């Protein structure tokens, strides 16, 4: 049975923790709004980019000589996985969910005897993956120092990917991130960016009747466009990720605040009971002492 003093100390400590989690929740809520806005603002770009590529790839008749970034190298031996996570913890299952998704993909690759290469973006992902997959991690990028997500950072990652592709270091490239659905729900996503997923391109056939004029020819535009598309996809993933991170942190901190509140209530009741018990005990002692006289 903890003494009254112990209980009092515990209550104060839980209360101050609650204050911190509450503050974190507020901060996350404010940041979330901004991140969400940014994610929405960034959408038109990636959508338009997708449209253009879609139209272009349809008009390419000569699939054999199409840029390799679009159709792949023809092999599927080396898989490069880009795992995008946060740089900070205390955001609920955010990082763990991405890692889980990525790990199941890794296991599949390894069991099929294919080569796996991992690039982690964000320090938390690296921390969690290095224990098990250290030998596979080829690069570990973190943008801790940049305050906002900017295209420049995404472009850096994109350039690394392109460079590796040109050196024939991988055949298939997939990115892992959390898609922001709403504040409570974030869906871990696996998206293949090299080669571009074919079935996705079949979805929209309505614009097929549009005969575009290309200047210069399709191949040249495509080979100029595809590297940009990779950066764009990464950027989109980073935007979604940051909105998800803040949303996830907000819910996690909200829960933590509520739990702390419950704990304080319980501890207060316990404290009051034991104080009352002590008082009653003293009273009984006094009364029985008086009676015996």
């Amino acid at each position, binding site marked *: 049975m903890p003494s009254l003093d112990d209980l009092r100390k515990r209550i104060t400590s839980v209360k101050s923790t609650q204050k911190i989690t509450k503050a974190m929740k507020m901060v996350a809520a404010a940041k979330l709004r901004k991140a969400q806005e*940014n994610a929405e*603002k*960034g959408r*038109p*770009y*990636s959508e*338009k*980019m997708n*449209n*253009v590529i879609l*139209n*272009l790839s349809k008009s390419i008749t000569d699939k054999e000589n199409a840029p390799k970034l679009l159709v792949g190298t023809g092999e599927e031996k080396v898989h490069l996985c880009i795992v995008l996570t946060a740089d900070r913890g205390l955001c609920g299952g955010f990082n763990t969910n991405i890692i889980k998704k990525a790990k199941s993909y890794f296991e599949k690759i390894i069991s099929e005897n294919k080569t796996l290469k991992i690039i982690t973006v964000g320090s938390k992902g690296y921390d969690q993956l290095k224990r098990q997959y250290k030998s596979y991690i080829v690069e570990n990028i973190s943008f801790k120092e940049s305050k906002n997500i*900017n*295209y420049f950072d*995404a*472009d850096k990652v994109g350039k690394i990917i392109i460079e590796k592709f040109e050196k024939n270091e991988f055949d298939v490239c997939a990115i892992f991130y959390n898609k922001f659905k709403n504040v409570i729900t974030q869906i871990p996503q696996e998206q293949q960016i090299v080669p571009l997923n074919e079935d996705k391109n079949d979805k929209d056939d309505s*614009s097929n009747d*549009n*005969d*575009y*004029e*290309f*200047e*210069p020819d399709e191949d040249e*535009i495509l080979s*100029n*466009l595809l590297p*940009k598309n990779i950066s*764009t996809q990464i*950027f989109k993933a980073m935007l979604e990720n940051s909105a998800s991170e803040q949303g996830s942190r907000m819910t996690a901190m909200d829960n933590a605040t509520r739990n702390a509140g419950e704990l304080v209530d319980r501890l207060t009741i316990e404290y009051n009971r034991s104080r009352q018990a002590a008082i009653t005990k003293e009273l009984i002692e006094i009364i029985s002492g008086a009676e015996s006289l």
Partner: protein
Amino acid sequence: MSNLFNIDIVNPEQSFLSKDNVFEVVIPAVEGEIGILKDHIPIISFLKPGIIRVFSESEEQNFYVEDGIVEFKDNTLSVLTSSIFDLKDADKNFVSKSISSAEAELSKDNIDDQKRFLLNHKVEVLKSISIN
């Protein structure tokens, strides 16, 4: 009948400009400038460093772009670019910095002709901006 069409300029971070009352846009496409009027046939092209001129009924706007993709379809001109600014708010420091970094890039030996051409062109355009 009106001879106006829409223009959307987007960069990765946000939608940069969206207008529905322009009658001519001149874009610095990679193989030369293209002037676009209403009912142009669908076209996809990409940009070299240069100036996009947007003429609407009331005003003329000029933007500097470094690269990007243009798509014209159904009387909507979409410009996707990662680097764009309005000539009106051109930052002298930024322009001169871009010139010097492009010149530094030019002085390297290992660049191919196409890149050299683009860089030369970029320096030229930027210099013309800084004079104005």
